Structure formats: structure tokens, C-alpha cells
């Protein structure tokens, strides 16, 4: 008796792991070659994994819902005869080309964010099973030449949908599989060649120009720091509960504004506009905080003026008011200009780190990343803490890394011990 380990084969280009969505076998089942073992779902498609050999299932590598890395053991089979036992490589394991790395995340998700521009047409939904169903045990139909080509490229033909008569796998099907990974043969994704031209006008063009200007002129440095906001969140919840009826609901933003106002009071170089044509940095005493806001028309940045002179409810009310006006398009030019430093936050979309683009001609921008409960070591054990990263960019022409780091550490300190936001010391 031998043992055969079926590994999760490479189910598509660039796919590193897949979620187990269905087991087709249970321990003790006797299965034939090509019987389906499991279905796994990648971000692209559901893929059925057939057994390369005949045998008895003696072990299953996970439960439904588990995310299984490509190449990890999926099923152990007891096979007849030891001859084939050590052979554990699934047929589809080797891919001809290494999976290309995913495209780099879009720069500065904040300011550019999602715009009302016509995006490239989204790929058709791929929820349906990508592999044309074959009766269990039935081998894929393909000419010897296609079979050889598949073998030489390390492709398991059982995963390739056939578009030919009777479901025959053609050279084109194989090429398509190589290019796109598993796909549904009929009614599924097809190669599309159309190109949609979208004219960049209005606000979009202004954003484009401003981003280009910022990125061309400003050598950005970005610092990402994690912040424990457990105490701040407790405070915020308590305040919201206490003043639920009569005061605006507090988000994290007013606290951050207050922290920035405090920090720049100690580091005025960060609350400044750099007139690079004139070679002058103008440090402002007033802290006018731009808040990058997504609107149907695109990204705009309403400005909370004199944050240094507002309490948190005042800030909250002003942010809410400006956001409202920005979204319905009634914000005045004055309300949309005059910032000296900017906050960008995508809320739940905020990722773990971002590389914010400075709102030219300012010299600093503070990016808020997603808050999440993470296990933190408190010296004796792991405790759940609400953690949030801040990703902040600085104009390295006028702000050195040291000053930037000091600023970020100060923000961290203020947010982690929110009492410091309110005591004058």
C-alpha cells in the first residue's frame, strides 16, 4: 500500500491561495482517478480539483472556509501498490511562467481615490464554475498534440475548459488558459479587445494636473507608524454616548485634527506652504486642515479653518458641514481653499498603509489607515488592541526625515494617550 498526497495545484496565474468551498469526498471514500476531490475558490473563479490517482481518502487538509496555500497538501490517499507512492506532485503544480506579481497598488489612494470617470469595463462575473463539468472519471478530450503541449507547459488538462465539439480542448483553449487561468468555456469570460476613450475634463483634469505637479515637484517621504487607539476609541464612544442627543457624533477625525494642531504648534515647519518658485516657506500660525473628501464629481478638499481654535465638537460639526456641502456641490471657493496641512482617510477602505500625495504647495499630509483589532504583546501576554496605522508624507525638500519622524511620534503619543489632547502641559 502506498500513499499519495494530492497538493492544491496552481489554479491560476498570480493566485497564491484559495478558499476551500466544498469537499466532494470524505475520509474513507474510495475514489477513482479524475473524481472530484474538492472545489476551491480564488478571487477569480471556483476551480474543481480532480484526483490524479485512484485510492482511498485517509486525510483531508482543511475544512470548508479554510484558505489553503497553493502547493499545500489537500488530500492524502491510500493507493494500491507502493510503486507510485512517493510521487506527490500534482499535475498542475508546475506553471510554465512564474506568476507575475500583482500590479502595484494605485498611487495615493486618498486624493485620487475613485473618481466618476468611466472605468475600464469590469470583467464579467466569474462566479460560475470555470471548468466545464465532466462526468467523474471522464478524461478531457484533446488531440495528442494538445495533450503534449499541456504536459510540456505543466498544465493539467482537466482544468482547461474545452470549447471544441463535444468539449474538446483546443490549442486556443490551452493558450487561453495559460493567459487567463481557469475560465468558463461557454457564456464565460472571453478576451475583449475594445478600448473606451474617456476625456479627462473639469475637476478630473484639475486633480490630474495637481497630482502631477505634486509628484513632479515634491520628493515625497512617507512614514507609516502604528497607533494604539484603544483608549481614544473608548473616550470617543463614551463621549458619543453621553452627548448622543445634542451634539454631533464624533468620528476619529476631530481628535486627529486636534492632535495635528497640537503637534504643529511644536513643529511650525510642518504647517507651511512652500512657494518653490520663490524659494520661500511660509509657516502659518493658523492650522487650516484640508480634509480629502470623495464626492460624486471627484476628489475635493474642503478646509476646516483654524483648527487650533476649535474644540472637538466644533471640528466635528465643521467637518460634517463641509463634507455635506462638498458632496452636494454647494461648497464655496473659500471653503475649498486655504489649507496648510491635509488629512486623508478612506475609512474602512484605508488599507494598512498608503503613500499619500501631498496637497501642493503644502509640506505634509497625514493618512489614516483602517482600524483593526490586533493581538499586541503587553509584556506578559497578547491582548486585543484597537490598532490603526498612520501613513504620512512629507516634502523632503524642506522637511527632514528626523523632523517628520518626530511629528509622527508626537501624533502617536497624543492619540494613544488622548488626555494629552486636552491638558495644557
Amino acid at each position: 500500500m502506498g500513499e499519495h498526497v494530492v497538493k492544491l495545484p496552481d489554479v491560476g496565474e498570480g493566485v497564491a491561495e484559495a478558499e476551500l468551498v466544498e469537499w466532494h469526498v470524505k475520509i474513507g471514500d474510495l475514489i477513482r482517478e479524475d473524481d472530484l476531490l474538492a472545489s476551491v475558490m480564488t478571487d477569480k473563479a471556483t476551480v474543481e480539483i480532480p484526483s490524479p490517482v485512484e485510492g482511498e481518502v485517509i486525510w483531508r487538509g482543511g475544512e470548508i472556509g479554510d484558505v489553503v496555500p497553493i502547493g499545500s497538501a489537500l488530500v492524502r490517499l491510500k493507493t494500491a501498490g507502493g510503486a507510485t507512492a512517493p510521487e506527490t506532485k500534482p499535475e498542475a503544480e508546475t506553471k510554465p511562467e512564474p506568476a507575475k506579481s500583482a500590479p502595484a497598488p494605485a498611487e495615493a489612494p486618498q486624493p485620487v481615490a475613485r473618481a466618476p470617470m468611466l472605468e475600464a469595463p469590469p470583467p464579467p462575473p466569474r462566479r460560475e464554475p470555470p471548468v466545464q463539468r465532466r462526468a467523474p472519471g471522464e478524461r478531457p478530450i484533446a488531440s495528442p498534440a494538445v495533450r503534449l503541449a499541456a504536459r510540456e507547459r505543466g498544465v493539467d488538462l482537466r482544468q482547461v475548459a474545452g470549447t471544441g465539439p463535444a468539449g474538446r480542448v483546443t490549442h486556443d483553449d490551452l493558450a487561453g488558459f495559460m493567459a487567463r487561468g481557469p475560465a468558463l468555456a461557454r457564456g464565460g469570460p472571453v478576451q475583449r479587445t475594445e478600448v473606451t476613450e474617456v476625456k479627462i475634463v473639469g475637476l478630473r483634469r484639475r486633480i490630474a494636473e495637481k497630482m502631477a505637479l505634486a509628484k513632479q515637484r515634491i520628493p515625497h517621504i512617507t512614514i507609516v507608524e502604528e497607533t494604539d487607539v484603544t483608549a481614544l476609541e473608548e473616550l470617543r464612544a463614551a463621549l458619543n454616548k453621553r452627548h448622543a442627543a445634542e451634539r454631533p457624533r464624533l468620528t476619529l477625525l476631530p481628535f486627529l485634527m486636534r492632535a495635528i494642531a497640537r503637534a504643529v504648534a511644536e513643529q511650525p515647519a510642518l504647517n507651511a506652504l512652500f512657494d518653490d518658485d520663490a524659494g520661500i516657506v511660509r509657516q502659518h500660525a493658523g492650522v487650516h486642515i484640508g480634509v480629502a473628501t470623495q464626492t460624486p464629481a471627484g476628489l475635493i478638499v474642503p478646509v476646516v479653518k483654524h483648527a487650533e481654535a476649535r474644540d472637538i465638537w466644533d471640528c466635528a460639526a465643521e467637518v460634517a458641514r463641509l463634507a455635506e456641502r462638498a458632496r452636494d456641490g454647494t461648497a464655496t471657493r473659500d471653503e475649498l481653499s486655504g489649507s496648510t496641512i491635509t488629512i486623508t482617510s478612506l475609512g474602512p477602505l484605508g488599507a494598512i498603509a498608503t503613500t499619500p500625495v501631498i496637497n501642493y504647495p503644502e509640506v505634509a499630509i497625514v493618512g489614516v489607515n483602517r482600524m483593526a483589532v490586533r493581538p499586541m504583546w503587553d509584556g506578559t501576554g497578547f491582548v486585543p488592541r484597537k490598532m490603526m496605522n498612520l501613513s504620512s508624507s512629507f516634502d523632503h525638500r524642506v522637511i527632514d526625515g528626523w523632523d517628520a519622524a518626530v511629528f509622527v511620534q508626537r501624533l502617536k503619543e497624543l492619540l494613544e494617550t488622548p488626555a494629552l489632547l486636552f491638558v495644557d502641559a
Partner: protein
Amino acid sequence: MDEIVCRLLVIGAGPGGYVCAIRAGQLGVDTVIVEQGRLGGTCLNVGCIPSKAMIHVAEEFEVLKTAAAGKSVFGMSATKPTLDLGKAVAWKDEIVHRLNTGVAGLLRRARVKIVHGQAQFRDGKTVEVETETGPVRIRAESVVIASGSVPVELPFLPFGGDVISSTEALSLSEVPKRLAVVGGGYIGLELGAAYAKLGSKVTVVEARPRILPLYDEELTGPVAKRLAELGVEVLTGARAKGAAVGALQIETAEGEARAIGADKILVTVGRAPATTGLGLEELVLDMDGRFIRIDDKCQTSMRGISAIGDVTGEPMLAHRAMAQGEMVAEIAAGLPRAWDKRCIPAIVFTDPEIVSAGLSPAEARAGGREVKVGLFPFQASGRAMSKHAERGFVRVVASADRHLVLGVQAVGQGVSELSTAFGLAIEMGATLEDIAGTIHAHPTLGEAFQEASLKALGHALHI
């Protein structure tokens, strides 16, 4: 002791072994092949080729006999024909010799070193060969066992004297007056029918209820009919018991003892793997019954040792061995290969011939599949009529849903040549529409393949 070191050592130069060695040589693998007999193995020396030669002799002679008997439908006549069997055998031997030489040339051209002698394993990487010039030790990275098969001997009918195997049957000095054939499989029937045509009184003794038990009755029917016409007596359900002077003793289906007069007793009850004398006991390979167990890459249970051909079991066919040999050579050269053939066509060179590729209707249905079957009789074929060969048919088996061709069988004169079309259709994943939509040249027997496909689709044109 002389020592040879190589990358690939092939034991046995039959169709599996020599193809393996040639392909390996082509791929630049340093290869040695060991053969104790003549190059070409059973197939070339005492199997496929010589038997087909003798069957051809018998066919030609049969034409003359028919004419001499005044039975020629073409109005031909002849005086009493005679046969110098020695001359026919010499002609056959000349063909075999030419092919032997041809294989040697091909091996040389592929730069394969040929060592003559019996190979014996010392361990999984070392083989010793007793050659005419002394023992040679060969050490190889991988070894391919392609030692073939030998005729099965019955303990109560040991080979020798008048009890012969297929090997001797191909080199008799005269046509036996009475020939008893034990075993109604394809070898016995091919040779039995040939000797019947050459003038022997042939009796076939088959233990099972019918001849050619591997093929369905629809296919074997025309063969049984023709055997009866040739005067071959077929005793099914009968068992051979032993030999007496000038007779074969049997027990009939009814349980009666009977003696069948026989000058020669041809025993064709199957072939057994040639695994003795190789020192295989040194290796303790996993076996599959008497055969060496292999996986889909023809690898045995021991790393670095592959086995191909008859020694690995049924179907014991030269073309299977050749395909395995080619694959193993490519694997030895580091190419990604595995056995993924869809069908191994099989031919019975009886009169008429039988071809089977893929699944029969019964086999296809046994898998729980719904099938469409189309049969076109040669009676409706102009070419068959013009050859005076109207017996038989082509039968196509396809899946009912997608019309995928699952199997093709035929019985008829000369249908062996259709096996290529049948095999190609299945290997390419053809559908009935593909066959029906291909222009088949007229007038040929092959048109029957197209018509059978049309029939399965419900619109045959000529029936």
C-alpha cells in the same frame, strides 16, 4: 570483466526495447541495448511479421485452390496448385532478415550500443551480460526492462515433437495434413485459418464457449462463418487433455473424451511475461500477477527501473510496447511525459480481419453511458462488392449526448488498414459529425466509416 557505463540500458530489443533505444539515442541519451536473441523480438522474428507473411501465402494459395476447384466467381480456372512450403518459409525468413538488419541499422544510426547475450540484474543499476566474448558488466542510471513474453506451455502438452508453439508453426517444413489448435484466441485462429487454406484439416479446441472471447459476437460471427467454410472444425467448451501418437486428446463440452487426429498440435493458449533468467529476484519489484507493475510513466516500484511491453501485461501488442518505449526514452531524456493514450487499436488477422479501437457498444454502456451506435455493412459498399469481399461491417460507438466517438470496430477483408483512421478519430477526440463531415474517397472500404457515422447520426446515405 569488461564494464560499460551508460545513462540508459534497455533489456530486450523487441519493438518496445528497440524503439526506446532509438528514441533515447535521438535525444542524445547514451544508450545500451541488450538482446539475447535476434533484434526485433517476438514481433519481428516469430510474431507479427512472419505470421502475416505466412497468412499472405495462405491467401494467395487459397485463390488458386478456389480457381482449381472451379469455384472462382470471376471465371478463373487453374490446374491443381501445389505449394513448396520450404520456399514460402524462406521468403518469409528473408523478410525477417531484412527487418533484423534494418533494426540494427537504425540502432547504429542512433548511436545505440548493442550487446548480445542474456542480461542478469546484479542490482538496480547493474546488469551482467554473458556475451560470446565473455561477461560484461553494464552500469546504467536507468534501466528499461523490455524482455517481452513467451508462449504459454501447458503442463500436459509440453512443447516438443509434434506439440508446437506459434514460433515453430511459422517455420514448418511441410503443411501438416491434420492440425489441432489448442486455444481459439487470435493467434490460434490466424494460424489455424492459414493452415486450413494451405490444405491442413484444422480442428480448433477452445475451452470457453466461443472463439475470440475478447470480441463481441457481432464481430466474431463472420470469422466463425468463414472458418466453417474453410472446413475448420471449432470445438468450443472443449478441453485439451494431452497428446497421444498422432492425436490430441480432449474432453468435449458434453464431457466426452475424444481423440482428434493431429500430425501437429499447435498450442496457442496465451503468452506469459519473460521474467525468468533476468535476475529480477534481486530487485523484488512489485508485481501485477505475473506481470511487472508499472505506473503511468512505465516506472516500476524501484526508482530508475522502467518496464515496457508484454512484460507489463495486456494488451500484449507491439504498438503498445513501441509507444511505451518512446515515452520512456523521452522521460529518460528529462522530458515531461506520461501515458495518456486514448486507445490501443487491436487487430485480428483472421479471414475476415477484425479491428477494434476504443470501446465496444457493451463496454461503453457498461460505464453507464448512453451511446449511439451506427453500423454500415460492406454489403452496401461498392468497393467491397468489387473486391468480392462483402462480408462484415464498420461499427461506430459514440456518446449519445456529445457524439464523441468512443469506439470503432470493423470486421471484413482488409479492414486492418482502417485501424489508423479509427485510432486517429478517437485520439483526436472526433465527433460523429467530424467523421461524417470528412470526405472519404470513393470507392474505398473506408467510406463505411463515414457511412456508419452518418447512420449513428440518423441519416446514412447508402442504406
